[in-house]
């Protein structure tokens, strides 16, 4: 049983002793998708980058196939770089505007010296195009000539060129239209099934996470407040914040509901439960940081009142 990724991470921004990511732990099995939900500013992007060592975590470890990525040296890192990759939210900045699509797709292969000659390179590119639903004519174009959805496909092609085993998707479709999102996400699922890739799928859209993920984690101000099998967490939320999210989320089916008044602030309480100031169920017990407790099999929540 190969645990693909297991991370204990704590990240601290030097200047203000501000913990963007605080004591996060989870595991993703091969071929599995973990969905990560949270609002803007909760630290999910920082977590994504820390996992891939794009930034260095201040504390903790990230195990990829048994090796600690967080502490690895540069040479070791470069070997696994291709296997753990990331796709970002904004298509506009995902590609070098001066490079043609062909060059953008082949760049990862060239950097890692994976292909030996042009012919082989060309072949690979053709195969990749097919995987992501693009055509030869797109190869000679520049990024500004492509739509958002097409750019995300190009990014996927780039990623696939190195045969990844783990992909972090940081809100990959938030900037795309509904029908385009459907196209792109279907491609995500296809390649996952084909290549047995694991995903960390970050999104603020609960429904998308629900469709994409096997397990779901909810993040609030740097901490994971609930985690478990997706349907379980969705139907049976334990943490008050999760409940708020599920209710506030305008699902298509219950569209006429009155939205809850949520007044959020950027301040963070250093000690204790970070959600307590907004929580209706808060009590004195909440002055201590709540740990993740198992509620039902595989389903954990971090709240004193569970």
């Amino acid at each position: 049983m190969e645990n693909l990724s297991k991370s204990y991470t704590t990240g601290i921004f030097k200047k203000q002793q501000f913990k963007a990511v605080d004591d996060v732990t989870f595991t993703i099995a091969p071929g599995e998708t973990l969905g990560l939900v949270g609002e803007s500013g909760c630290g999910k992007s920082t977590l994504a980058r820390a996992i891939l060592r794009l930034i260095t975590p201040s504390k903790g470890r990230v195990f990829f196939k048994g090796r600690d990525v967080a502490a690895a040296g540069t040479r070791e890192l470069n070997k696994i770089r291709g296997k753990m990759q990331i796709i970002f939210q904004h298509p506009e900045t995902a590609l070098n505007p001066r490079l043609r699509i062909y060059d953008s797709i082949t760049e990862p292969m060239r950097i890692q010296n994976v292909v030996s000659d042009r012919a082989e390179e060309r072949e690979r590119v053709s195969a990749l195009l097919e995987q992501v639903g693009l055509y030869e004519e797109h190869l000679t174009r520049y990024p500004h000539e492509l739509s958002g959805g097409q750019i995300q496909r190009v990014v996927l092609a780039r990623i696939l060129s190195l045969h990844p085993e783990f992909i972090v998707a940081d809100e990959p479709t938030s900037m795309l239209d509904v029908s385009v999102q459907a196209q792109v996400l279907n491609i995500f699922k296809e390649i996952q099934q084909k290549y047995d890739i694991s995903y960390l799928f970050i999104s603020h859209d609960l429904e998308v996470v629900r469709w994409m993920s096997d397990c779901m984690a909810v993040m609030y101000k740097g901490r994971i407040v609930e985690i478990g099998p997706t349907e379980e967490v969705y139907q049976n939320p334990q943490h008050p914040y999760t409940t708020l999210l599920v209710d506030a989320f305008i699902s298509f089916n219950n569209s006429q509901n009155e939205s809850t008044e949520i007044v959020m602030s950027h301040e963070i309480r250093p000690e204790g439960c970070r959600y307590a100031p907004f929580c209706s169920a808060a009590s004195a017990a909440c002055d201590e940081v709540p740990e993740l407790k198992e509620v039902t099999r595989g389903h954990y929540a971090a709240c004193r009142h569970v």
Partner: protein
Amino acid sequence: MASAAVAVERNLTFIQLKKNKLAIIGLLIISLLVIVAVFAPVLAPHHPYEQDLDRVMMAPCSEYPFGTDDFGRCILSRIIFGTRISLAIGLIVTAISAVAGIILGMLAGFYGGVIDEVIMRIVDIFLAFPGLILALVIAGLLGPGMFNVLFALALVGWMGYARVVRGAVLAEKEKSFVETAMSLGASDLYIMCRHLLPNVIAPVIVMATLGIGHTILAAAGLSFLGLGAQPPIPVWGSMLNDGKQYLQTAPYMTIFPGLAIMITVLSFNFLGDGLRDIFDPRLKEKSIE
């Protein structure tokens, strides 16, 4: 609103066309100047050093279309040959300043930290001196000669490029494609050359084009003050200096070199402005809602 942005962009193209006319005129004139510089020996009616002491300070006539100077030399020929020097100074100085500025700006922006601080403080120190005066001092200290003028002007010209490039690099560095390349193990040099440089070069091109104009003007100024190439080498600035005492009697000695300087500098300015307009709107996003 994005659609309005697009439509505004289309509108800018309309304005662009108007301004572009100036840019095209500038480009044409510059091309002409280059031809003149290259084919100077063929185009000039006389040798620039040739003195015709019988016909000193003659007004323009058929044999000497721009007249002669105080040594009987043909002003037109001197201006034609002077084009070589002016363009050469403009191009060489700007090239050196730009390259130095790009390198320093790139390093400062990419690495940040101590390197950034050190480079930026050096920039600040240089910027604390008025450019032309500093160039004057340096050239004065080094003595006469064109090479010294080149050196002095290059030394005071690089800061602007460094700042602009640093700023642009800071912005581009944050974009995902750079982050991705870094995460795949690309070397710093690769990232700087392949990803950053092409995307920060646009403002540099505009600056450089305008910079050539400024440099020519500055060189003319320094030459006017006696620095730079010594007679009989024809330099527009020193021709102005030579002619200034005869302003009443032989105004053509100053008018023609002055015009040459003005037209040259204006052309580069027009071209630079046109380039700036072309680069700016195109960099904005194109999308219609």
